[in-house]
Every structure is written in structure tokens, then in C-alpha cells.
């Protein structure tokens, strides 16, 4: 498949971080990676490989030292950060809900994005709830008393209830049990398909990757060592370090049933 200009793309991005006085650690080493509308890109790799740092570049929570991030060909640094983040929300690893009910959360999000407050009877909201498998009966429940899986779903609805063009997911299933994570994978697929969203998913969960992503980028020590179709990368990795990582993750998953 020829990929000319991806919808959301990091181009040759380099990020360093201060570790101690005067010393910098290079976290990302000239990465180029992109995702198209309606496509799910899974960025997998061991802890500390720079996955979350990479994700935070896409909605300008971090700035690269070198290189650029482009949205529909436009450098995101030319877009007002709140406007950009309203279009490319990031759902954090640990779901954080504001105090109040689920509806309060949706309304708070609308206020932050300066969009219209959602209405209970709004058909678009009903569709979104259905898409994310959030029961309308949760709307008037205390958001922080929902289970972690339910909270994660509410976070999804909250992020999508706006002018969303892409979605960034940071380890979205790390706190979930296996069946819930599998359901989530299905939800992500539906979201990408129905809303034609570009989704970047950072995870070390290979099962989730296999079940929902179209493409996989394998990040090790700040470099993308493999990037391609999911089945190809997971089944026929070309590099030795990719094989080692995939093998270690697969055996780890087998050791932790559930």
C-alpha cells in the first residue's frame, strides 16, 4: 500500500529529556510515523521505549526538539493548542473523571471545548453512547463510582463528544480484565470505522493489538524498528530485536491468564 501523506504524522521527531544536571537522555530518535483516517495504528514496545512520549507529541502536550508533527499536512505548532486538543483528544491510561455525574462530565467537556452542551435526548449523543457501549442509565450516576472499565468507556464518550478528528489512547486496557479488554478492542474498531477517525493506540498488550489495529509500529529504545500491517509484524517480524520482544510479551501473556 503506498502511503503518500498520512492524515496525522510525526516526521523525523527527536525528543530529549533532562535526566540530571546538564545531562540529556534521548527518548525518541528521529521517528517518522503516520496514521490515516479510519485506521488504527498500534505503537507497541517495552516499558521506557518512548511510547507515551511519542503519543504526547501528537496533541502538542510535548514539543519535539527536531522534526514536526503534521495534521492533514499542516504543522500542529501553527494550530492553537486547545483547538488542536479538542480535535485530537488523548485518553489517559488511568481514566480520570471529573466529580459529578456522567452527564456532568460530558457537559464539563463541552464547556472546555466551547461546544454545545449535550442533551439527554440528542440523537447524536444516543448514537455515541451506543457506539461506546455506555448505557444511557449511567448518565445520572456518580461517574467516580463506576467500575474502571465503565469509567474508561465514559472517558471515550467524553473525548468523542466534540469536533474529533483523531483519537490518542494511552494503554487503554492496562487496568481491565481480559473479557473487558476484548470488548474494548471491538469498540475501538467500531469507532475508527463509524467515525472515520485516525486512532493511535499505545500499548504493550499484543492481544489488543492483534484484535483491533490495522498497523503496528514497534518502538524499541526510541526508534521504530518495524512498521507495517498488524499480521505481518506480529507473525513475521524481520528483525531479531522485534522477534525477541514479541516472544517475551507472548510468553508473559500466557503466564498471566485471564
Amino acid at each position, binding site marked *: 500500500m503506498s502511503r503518500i501523506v498520512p492524515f496525522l504524522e510525526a516526521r523525523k521527531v527527536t525528543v530529549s529529556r533532562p535526566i540530571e544536571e546538564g545531562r540529556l537522555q534521548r527518548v525518541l530518535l528521529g521517528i517518522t510515523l503516520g496514521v490515516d483516517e479510519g485506521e488504527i495504528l498500534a505503537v507497541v514496545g517495552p516499558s521506557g521505549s518512548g511510547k507515551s512520549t511519542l503519543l504526547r507529541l501528537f496533541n502538542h502536550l510535548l514539543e519535539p526538539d527536531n522534526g514536526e508533527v503534521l495534521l492533514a499536512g499542516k504543522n500542529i505548532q501553527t494550530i492553537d493548542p486547545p483547538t488542536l486538543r479538542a480535535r485530537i483528544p488523548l485518553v*489517559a491510561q488511568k481514566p480520570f473523571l471529573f466529580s459529578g455525574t456522567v452527564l456532568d462530565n460530558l457537559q464539563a*467537556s463541552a464547556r472546555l*471545548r466551547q461546544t454545545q452542551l449535550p442533551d439527554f435526548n440528542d440523537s447524536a449523543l444516543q448514537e455515541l453512547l451506543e457506539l461506546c457501549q455506555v448505557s444511557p442509565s449511567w448518565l445520572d450516576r456518580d461517574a467516580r463510582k463506576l467500575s474502571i472499565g465503565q469509567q474508561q468507556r465514559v472517558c471515550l464518550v467524553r473525548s468523542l463528544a466534540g469536533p474529533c478528528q483523531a483519537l490518542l489512547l494511552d494503554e487503554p486496557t492496562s487496568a481491565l480484565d481480559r473479557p473487558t479488554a476484548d470488548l474494548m478492542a471491538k469498540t475501538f474498531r467500531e469507532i475508527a470505522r463509524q467515525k472515520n477517525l485516525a486512532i493511535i493506540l499505545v500499548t504493550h498488550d499484543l492481544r489488543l493489538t492483534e484484535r483491533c489495529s490495522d498497523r503496528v509500529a514497534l518502538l524499541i529504545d526510541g526508534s521504530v524498528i518495524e512498521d507495517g500491517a498488524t499480521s505481518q509484524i506480529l507473525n513475521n517480524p524481520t528483525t531479531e530485536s522485534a522477534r525477541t520482544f514479541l516472544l517475551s510479551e507472548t510468553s508473559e501473556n500466557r503466564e498471566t491468564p485471564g
Partner: protein
Amino acid sequence: MSATIIDLSLWDLVTAYSLLLMSIGLAHLLKAGQSKDLFWSGLRMFVQLLVVGYVLHLIFALKTALPVLLILIVMVGFAVQTIGARMKMKMPHFYRVVGTAILFGCGVMTFFFCSLVIGLEPWYDPRYLIPLAGMIIGNSMTGASLAVERLAAEFRERQDEIETALCLGGSIQTVSEPAVSSAFRAALIPSVNAMAAMGLVFLPGMMTGQIISGTEPLIAVKYQIAIMCAITGSVSLTTFLILRLGYRAYFTSYQSLREGC
């Protein structure tokens, strides 16, 4: 009412200091570990106030504006330094933010109060300007340090909430609102409590001082009311400025939370 002021002799002061010795003794008895602090603070107070007494004596005699203004600037400097020394975790650009806010907030309020409320003639009359500015700066310093401390705590505690709101497209002003209003409330609590309890629970220092030095109680009361309004105004203005300038310091130029704040 004729002003008959009882001057204190050196012996009277020594007698007063015996009360401090009693405090040192009690601290020692309870092993509170404060005997040394009490001793040195007592000594510092003696030396500092003696120096201030002589400086004021000199400035009152000079009757020119420049030394008065210099004293006020030194007071602001000490206020900023005191807050800085007290803070364990300083906000980014701390001295610039707090210095500007105290200088501007207290400056505006002192001159508003002295020229429009009291109508000082000349405007720099040190007998009024220095003690009034001292009260305004001192109280604003307390308010400012409470605000700075609370703002830092709020940004620490609300990190997840603020980052979530940023990720949904909130502006830094909107996402900081809860932290900023909580810090403003914290700064104003002493002023609110002082005004509510005044006259019932305690007689305020300035009023007491004026009464002791022979001022008619009703005049002293009017002064006290006016200065409390000025103090509250100054605490609010200084805190407002600190918070307006200060919350931005927690964010990068591209509106994300700074790390390690």
C-alpha cells in the same frame, strides 16, 4: 482627652523580658526544643526594633520623600524575601511574579488609602505613610504566601484533572480556574476572620496603639475600620495579581503542564 504617654524605662523593658525568660523556661521544661529559637528571636526583635526606632526617628526629622520611599521599597523586598524563604516549593518565576504583585498591589492600595481616604499632607508624611504601608505590606505578605502555597498544592493535587481538561481542549485559564479560586479563598481567610472577630474577640493593634497614645477611641475606631478595608483590598489585589501572573508559570509556552512543578 489629653495624651499622657507612659514612657518605658530600661528597667521596665528588662521586666518585660522576664516574661520571655519564663517562656524559655516552659519550653525547656516541656522539652519542646524551642528555647534557643525563643532566645534568638527575642534578641533579634530587640535589635531590629531598636534600629527601626532610630531610623524612623531620623526619617521623621528629615521630612523629605526619598528616604520614605526607600524604606517602603526595602519593606517590599523583605516581604518577598520572607515569602521566598518560607516556601518549600517555589512556583516558576517566583520572585518576578511575587515581587511585581506586592509592589504594584501594595503600592496602589497604600497611595489610594493615604491620598484619597486620609488625605495626607504632604503625601509622604512618614508618621502616617510608613506604619500604614507596613500594615498593608505585612498583611499582603501573609495573604500572598498563603496564595502561593495553596496554588502549588492545588497544581500538585489536581495534576490529573488539569491534564485531562487540557487533553479535552481546555485553555490554561479554564483548566486553572478551580486551583486559582481555591488559592484566592485561602489568601482572604485571615482578612475575613479578622474583620468578623474584630472588637469582639480582640482589639486590633493599630486601634489599641492609638488609644494608648491618647487618641479618642471613636477616631481610633474609624482609622481601624478604614485600614482594615485597605488591608483587605491590598490582600485581594496582591493575591489576584500573583494568581493571574502565577498560574501561567505552571504551563509551557504551548499550553501544557510543566514537568516537576
